[in-house]
């Protein structure tokens, strides 16, 4: 939890940056319970980890035990079979593309909307965008697939575009709630100095949106990286599979070689888990910030 959150609800006399000492006693009962319950998360992950190092015959008899010897053979096999480097590249391109484009465009749309919400036409547009929150993907799945194929965007670029557009509704909601609190006087003084609307947006508004950009960026990255259905139906070229999609496609080829399949799963989740290990505090506060608005 960031110090800013604490500061916000402290009385004005306190130093806003100082975290108020928690005067409560340490709750050992809750600590123990949380530790025990975390096994429900850790055991399946532990199982996936040890399995990836075993041989097939070993797996059948050993269950949850540690592998007799740590062999990387499964990882090598999964690496070759799924062509891991190109899967990783595809997933990375799509995720980075979706995040960057989403931040640049969705914030801009939200800004232009929020500064004109007093107009009936813009208010109508605002609700037009928000209506997308209620459209379930399955209903448009078949027509969209035909459309992207007809337009020749049944590839990574098309998928990025779809993430950017389908995220609009939710992101507009997030950005506008934040923009409401940004006083227009801030922009007006810049305008008096001769700045254009574009300059005002990129130089003043966009930097101010940084906390919301973090939240939107995190949620978009998790969505694009982990998504299965959209890549499954949109990407038509078998050479351009994302990491989750590759697990599905190669499921049959792993056959009963479960250790290799588990090695493949681990490699697919490893990049995001690594990022998360280092950025978890930032990720969690980003998600929390989104919901507190």
């Amino acid at each position: 939890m960031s110090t800013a959150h604490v500061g916000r609800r402290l009385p004005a006399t306190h130093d806003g940056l100082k975290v108020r000492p928690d005067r409560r006693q340490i709750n050992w009962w809750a600590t123990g319970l949380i530790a025990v319950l975390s096994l429900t998360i850790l055991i399946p992950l532990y199982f996936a980890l040890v399995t990836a190092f075993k041989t097939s015959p070993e797996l059948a008899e050993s269950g949850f035990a540690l592998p007799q010897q740590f062999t990387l053979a499964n990882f090598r096999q999964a690496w070759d079979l799924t062509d891991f480097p190109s899967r990783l590249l595809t997933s990375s391109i799509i995720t980075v593309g979706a995040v960057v484009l989403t931040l640049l465009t969705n914030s801009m749309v939200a800004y232009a909307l929020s500064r004109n919400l007093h107009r009936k036409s813009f208010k109508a547009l605002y609700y037009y965008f928000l209506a997308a929150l209620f459209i379930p993907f399955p209903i448009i799945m078949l027509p969209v697939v035909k459309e992207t194929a007809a337009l020749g965007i049944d590839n990574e670029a098309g998928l990025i575009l779809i993430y950017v557009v389908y995220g609009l509704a939710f992101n507009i909601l997030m950005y506008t709630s934040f923009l409401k609190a940004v006083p227009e006087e801030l922009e007006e003084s810049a305008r008096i100095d001769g700045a254009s609307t574009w300059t005002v947006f990129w130089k003043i508004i966009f930097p101010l949106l940084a906390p919301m950009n973090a939240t939107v960026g995190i949620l978009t990255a998790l969505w694009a990286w982990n998504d299965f259905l959209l890549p499954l139906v949109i990407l038509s070229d078998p050479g351009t599979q994302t990491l989750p999609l590759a697990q599905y496609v190669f499921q049959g080829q792993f056959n009963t070689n479960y250790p290799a399949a588990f090695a493949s799963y681990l490699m697919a989740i490893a990049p995001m888990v690594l990022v998360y290990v280092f950025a978890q505090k930032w990720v969690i506060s980003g998600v929390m910030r989104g919901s507190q608005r």
Partner: protein
Amino acid sequence: MSIASSTQSTSAPDAPRGEGGRGWTAEELKQLSSTEGRKKIDPAHLWMIVPAVVLFTGLLIYPLLQGIFYTFTNYQGYGQWRFVGLTNYINLFQDDIIWQSYGFTFLYAISATVLTNVIALFLAVMLNSKIVGRNGWRGLYFLPNILPVLIVAYIFSYLFTNNLPKLGQWLGWEWLSTSLLANEQLAWLAIVFVGVWQGVAFTTIIYLAGLQTIPEEVYEASSLDGAGTWKKFTQITFPLIMGFFTINVVLSFKNSLGVFDQVVAMTNGGPGTSTQSIAFLIFKNGFQGGEYAYQTANGVVYFIILIVLSFAQLKFLQSREQI
């Protein structure tokens, strides 16, 4: 945040001006002058929005309308088609496969929503109390949310098929001694389990965000000081995070109704057709079964149900919030 937004709302252009003959304040006068400029829309603002409107319409609204159009035809996804009126919709209601998929999807969505929210609320309260290594635990409990549903489902699928039956045999529980996923009556439980395992992570963090908006002073000031934990929770904590409860229930339910990845990874709709969710059925029969028009009609019915339920939920939960 609440302070900032309330000052903003008084200076919003829509706020009533100069009522009750109390004259114009300086701020209101400034607003008057800014309303003069209302007629002109900043062209830059238009340039910012128009491309988005075009793309949004093209990739979302147009397919939606096109899909609805085709539901009145016998289009298979390729080749010739003709209008068939409401035939698709009438057939939907007489199709056992469709009824079964709605049955499964709602059974899944209701169980997953209830379980996810109960467990997440409990975990959030625990994680918000003063425990050792609080940030580390929070990081761990959010971890499932950063994993792809498909891969999580593959991992559990193995455990349900190979390890859980052994446990069942050891315990002597007959229902657990064979694979849950091969059991027509119980396969849905396995899918719920995986959905909840993953869904709890995000929901917990939202509840935690809600709990952190409650200052400790509220508990100290209340007459319930010294009351039991359960009483404090129901009388103070829960009413104060009702808004977060509303968001979570509506979101969990909407996401659960779209269940797809777990079904593909764990049962592929089986055994038989017992775990075909609506999204799965639209995907499978729409793409592979030549039922383009028919399954899109299924999608339209699903869409209408989703809208009605979302509004009903919001209305019901918001009415409770005001108490």
